């Protein structure tokens, strides 16, 4: 059979316009939604109804949008953590563990206690944030050090350390700080909580029931900080140089060993901050399963955002919405299906950045 037209795929020989990657990613998400709808229709569902429900459950009102943002908050910080490491081609798969250790270290402020509940609240929260970052940085230091000094593959070490971090947490919440035999500590006193909009409901009626907390501001500040580091700072230039060509970086006199450790620690610190924000802003105690895999979703977020810190925020909101929707829609696997398809689409859309497809009429 002869087609009346010819489709040819050719390698792009010149640069694509700057807006193309963004457009592609957006199209990929739209197509992913369409495919999901198709699958839904095939199994007898009503895609339009699900879509309406999805919308109302995630962005439909200020309350649901706040839920979405609450889920997006840790994703922003973890996504940034991964983006920072990936920029230097360090494959930190350990954000999950760094998140847990950040949560643990932040909890120490409450549980040891490092600061009494009567201490000034800003001081308490700042200490918790710093402790969370220290915890995460420590957990980033281990694979960073091993990679820098002994060239141990950071993918393996950071991945395995996730389990160590989770078990470490378990030891403390099962054995030491267990609340009546449950695998959780007692609820933190309110002075250790990140302020939520709901706390101001008495002054502003509209804030009633809005659980959005200060952690989201941490995330935004972190995004700006990461952007500034990449675009304006000397260290960011060094990270880019090492990431692009370590040999050239060494030739330019850079200390690669030190930078590997520093970047892994910085990445860990961002994930640790997410852990702090989550226990102080949402869970209000240290317990099991404080993360439904944020550390791993962060990898996807960073990748979909093409390591751009501001895009990380947008992608995090989308994925936050997916998590919220997964809670609301039955079966809950639907949101995961959508997540998977989005990832697949965005990765495949990369092909179109490198190749162009032209359709010509057959001669």
């Amino acid at each position: 059979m002869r087609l009346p037209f010819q489709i040819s795929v050719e390698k792009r020989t010149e640069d694509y316009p700057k807006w193309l990657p963004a457009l592609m990613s957006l199209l990929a998400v739209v197509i992913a939604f369409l495919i999901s709808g198709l699958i839904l229709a095939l199994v007898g569902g009503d895609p339009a109804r699900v879509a309406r429900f999805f919308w109302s459950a995630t962005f439909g009102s200020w309350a649901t949008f706040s839920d979405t943002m609450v889920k997006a908050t840790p994703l922003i910080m973890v996504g940034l953590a991964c983006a920072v490491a990936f920029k230097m081609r360090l494959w930190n798969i350990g954000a999950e563990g760094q998140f847990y250790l950040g949560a643990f270290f932040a909890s120490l402020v409450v549980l040891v206690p490092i600061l009494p509940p009567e201490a000034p609240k800003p001081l308490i929260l700042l200490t918790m944030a710093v402790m969370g970052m220290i915890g995460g940085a420590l957990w980033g230091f281990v694979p960073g050090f091993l990679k820098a000094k002994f060239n141990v593959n950071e993918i393996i070490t950071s991945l395995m350390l996730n389990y160590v971090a989770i078990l470490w947490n378990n030891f403390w919440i099962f054995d030491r700080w267990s609340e009546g035999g449950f695998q959780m500590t007692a609820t933190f006193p309110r002075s250790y909580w990140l302020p939520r909009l709901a706390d101001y409901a008495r002054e502003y009626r509209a804030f009633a029931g809005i659980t959005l907390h200060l952690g989201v501001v941490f995330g935004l500040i972190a995004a700006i900080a990461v952007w500034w580091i990449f675009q304006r700072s000397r260290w960011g230039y060094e990270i880019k140089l090492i990431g692009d060509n370590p040999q050239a970086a060494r030739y330019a006199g850079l200390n690669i060993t030190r930078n590997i450790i520093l970047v892994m620690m910085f990445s860990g610190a961002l994930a640790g901050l997410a852990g702090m924000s989550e226990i102080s802003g949402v869970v209000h105690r240290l317990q099991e399963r404080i993360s439904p895999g944020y550390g791993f979703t962060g990898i996807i977020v960073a990748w979909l955002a093409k390591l751009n810190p501001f895009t990380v925020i947008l992608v995090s909101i989308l994925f936050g919405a997916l998590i919220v929707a997964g809670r609301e829609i039955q079966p809950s696997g639907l949101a995961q299906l959508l997540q998977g398809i989005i990832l697949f689409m965005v990765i495949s859309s990369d092909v179109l950045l490198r190749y162009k497809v032209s359709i010509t009429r057959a001669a």
Partner: protein
Amino acid sequence: MSDTPYAVEMKEIVIRFPGVLANDHVNFTLKQGEIHALLGENGAGKSTLMNALAGLYRPTSGVIKVMGEAVQFHSPKDAIAKGIGMVHQHFMLVPTQTATENILLGLPEPRFHVDLKRFDEQILALQQQYGLFVDVKSKIWQLSVGEQQRVEILKTLYRGADILILDEPTAVLAPQEIDELMATLRSLVAQGKSIIFISHKLHEVEKVADRITVLRKGKVTAEGLPIQGLGKQQLAQMMVGRDVIFRVEKEAQPAGDVVLAVRDVQALNKKGTPALRGVSLDVRSGEILGIAGVAGNGQSELAECITGLRPCSGSIRIDGVELANAPPMRAIKAGVAHVPEDRTHVGSAPNLSITDNTIMKQYREAPIGNGVTINRGHARAFAGRLKEAYDILAPSVRTLARKLSGGNLQKVILAREISGQPRMLVAVQPTRGLDVGAIESIQRLLLQQRAAGAAVLLISEELEELFSLSDRIAVIFAGQIMGIVEAAAADIATIGLMMTGTRLEEIRQEKEAAT
């Protein structure tokens, strides 16, 4: 139809890329059993034309005939099926696999179980037939560049190629290896193969080719002329469209104080075997010391030791400051600039902009850096100034380094290194693989550094370059300096003897004995 004398006929080939007309109605013919040189400057469209013949690009218009039969290639596979094999300038080999494994890669046979022994023997037989010897059991990374090239040629022969395209095959080779390659090419032709030899080196083309086609800016300026009777000057003019000055002018100038003092330096190469075995030499201010030698005799390692990239024993002093085994940063601070052998893998960051590449060594200092931030405005202005001053051809300073041609990338690297007003400049193969125009400007820049009072260590495999630029020439062999001679008084025979392992004293003794 195979009674045609032509193995390949390309007629009125037009290849258009967005914004560029790479080939403009090009005609090209390859006779059976000949070596046809395709000559032209970088960017003249040689590789593009040949990539079309090898099935990598499709011409916008034009006809390609192979053995008299019109063909349309959609992929390299189609070209291979017609007996066309191409050896690219940058080898396409898997470093961790053996020669045999690389040759078999991508073929339908063997399917699942690889009986390497059987295939090793087949390939040995092929080696015997064409006189292309490589240890088939060696992993690619263990082979020299020349040997890797032989693997590439064997790869095409194993696939049954009758028409071989070699894209600048000599660019990466040492003089000795070049001679071997030439011999190989002749034996291939003697056994009925036809060869297209892409080059911009006139003397090689003169030596090996039967006919020649010259391209300039995508157009043919000489079509299939027999090589006999054509002078070097004439070829050069067809290639660049003007007379080429073969010798750069060098002013006589007395050398100053010793800047670089190397004493008894020993070092290992990347395979862990001794590469430098007690090297001692001095380079003075305002002097170019050339290092001659066949590739792989310790030149690269010497440069790496001086610039702090390779650990060594012995003493390396710059203006009296000990630098042996110091980190690269110390050498940079001491005023050592380095034009590395490997432009793309060591000298530049391919996915960063020209700006980011030019500030690689200056970003720590004001006004570009202030310790914490980088002033992008100053950085761009700095890159802009270098782009202007060194005539770097690129759309803007935002252009990515990997988009630059070899000559322009080398100018970026040289501009960066020279802009720091170095005390010492270590230049390794600075003109390798560049076209005539770029070579000239790079050589001028080196001489300018000499005039400005820098000490220059020039490591090159181009003897012509060493003779015309150097004040003194040291010859290195098997990690030892065989002798150092004044360039003006040196004769090529003596250098050649030293390059093959005879010490200068021995040569002089023999001469005395003879008289």
